[in-house]
């Protein structure tokens, strides 16, 4: 994975903007930003963004590749779409944030411990296994993300929530063994594999 990072550094040298335009979802919009700052005031988790969206756009143009891609900032995006409906230049900011996060993750340089990165990965594996979400497996996986002891602790903290869901019939107690499956699950896994191959080829990620 970090080899891929090296390849990209070589390929784009000092032109991070060009790299973003080529490899990041909706990245070709970045140059349209006029730095008004409206987006940065829109993020619900604003105080937790080390670099809010406007600043990230500025940093991309300034070639601050490492600072951007290794940042936790994009991982704070809640997909609330406040920014998109407010931006005077109509930049698809939400998608650019997702795209940057995905790109950094692909390159293997996204912050290792970021909980949203790890949760997103588990989520994707969960849905692509059977075609649908298996909520119990997903939550159990989430609690045990930081290891066994902390998993037990988190599980206990969440116990009242889980019991509430169970009592009201909103959680499948047998979810660890079944649930979350559609008939075409095999087809879906094949389709996703192929989609990944095509995307990698188009973006020059394939070896």
């Amino acid at each position, binding site marked *: 994975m970090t080899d891929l990072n090296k390849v990209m550094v070589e390929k784009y040298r000092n032109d991070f903007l060009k790299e973003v335009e080529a490899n990041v*979802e909706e990245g070709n919009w970045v140059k349209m930003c006029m730095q008004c700052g409206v987006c940065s005031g829109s993020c*619900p*988790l604003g105080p*937790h963004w080390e670099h809010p969206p406007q600043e990230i756009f500025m940093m991309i143009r300034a070639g601050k590749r490492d600072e951007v891609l290794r940042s936790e900032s994009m991982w*704070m995006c*809640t*997909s*609330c*779409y*406040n920014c*998109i409906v407010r931006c005077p230049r109509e930049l698809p900011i939400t998608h650019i944030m*997702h*795209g940057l*996060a*995905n790109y950094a*993750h692909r390159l293997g340089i996204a912050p290792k411990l970021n*909980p*949203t*990165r*790890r*949760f*997103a*990965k588990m*989520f*994707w*594996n969960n*849905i692509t296994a059977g*075609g*649908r*979400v298996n*909520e119990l497996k997903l*939550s159990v996986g*989430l609690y045990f993300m930081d290891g066994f002891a902390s998993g037990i602790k988190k599980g206990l*903290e969440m116990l*009242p*929530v889980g019991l*509430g*869901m169970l*009592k*009201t*019939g*909103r*959680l*499948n107690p047998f*979810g660890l063994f079944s*649930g*979350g499956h*559609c*008939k*075409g699950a095999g*087809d*879906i896994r*094949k*389709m*996703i594999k*192929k*989609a*990944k191959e*095509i*995307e990698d080829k188009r973006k020059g990620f394939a070896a």
Partner: protein
Amino acid sequence: MARKEYSFYPGCSSERKASASNYMVSVESMCKTLDIKLNEIPDWNCCGASIGYAEGGELPRHVMNARNIALSEKNFGNQDIVATCAACWLGAKESQERINHSETIFADINVILKDAGLKYEGKQKIRHMVEVLIEDLGYEELGKPVKKPLDGIKIAGYVGCQTNRPFGVDGESFESPKYLDKLVETVGGTPLEKYEEKVTCCGGALAFSEPEKSQAQIKKIIESAYDHGADMIVTPCPVCQMNVEVYQGQINKKYGTKFNIPVTYYSQLMAVAYGASAKEAGLDGNIVRATKLEEIAAKK
């Protein structure tokens, strides 16, 4: 024949014994009264939701949605697609726009689907249930079957983000949409029009991964409802519903608050007003019991 028919995408959270199964129960009851027929897309899969981007990337995400759309085209091609989950609706609609916009993606998608014997055209409209109720039926029609108006119940309409942005319901503003309030009025309840946190984000999927940061958001959303004297909160989105309802205990522990406010779906309000029993309205699925609705539902 039913008055209206739609190709229906229920989404994972609505499955039996999943977190929004009671939403589905109430939607069924509501649609029965309104003579709306929902034709479930056979063997639909998860939409990938808003967190799918990180691992999934672009094309794999679009493929997930394209499969559902293609299955819908094949089975109910002349009907609009309707979703009850805001994230599903948004994910499917976004993928459709992106695929239809790019010849390359369009071609790629069809190459991939072909192996499974499917074909994507992307001509059906993708809509949210609330949109359909308001635009295809209208408030007046929705008000006609009301048998038991929700007299005297004060309800904070929490619209959240994704039902409202970036697409939203036609003619409504992003910052202060009125449709939930109007729906509450339609079924005889009292909307709290001054409720400030209508469109505040609850943290979405980050409620799982960043619980403390999200719970600070949720606290604001609930506090403001109490400030305006709300008996309950109503939402159009299963993720909002879950986030605002199930963490109240944890928030109370952390902040010393005493939150215990029911969080219901618009469809539950409508079902009860249309004369459904508590069970038919999915009220047995609410962790914080909506006693005022239960009382009305129990009345003969």
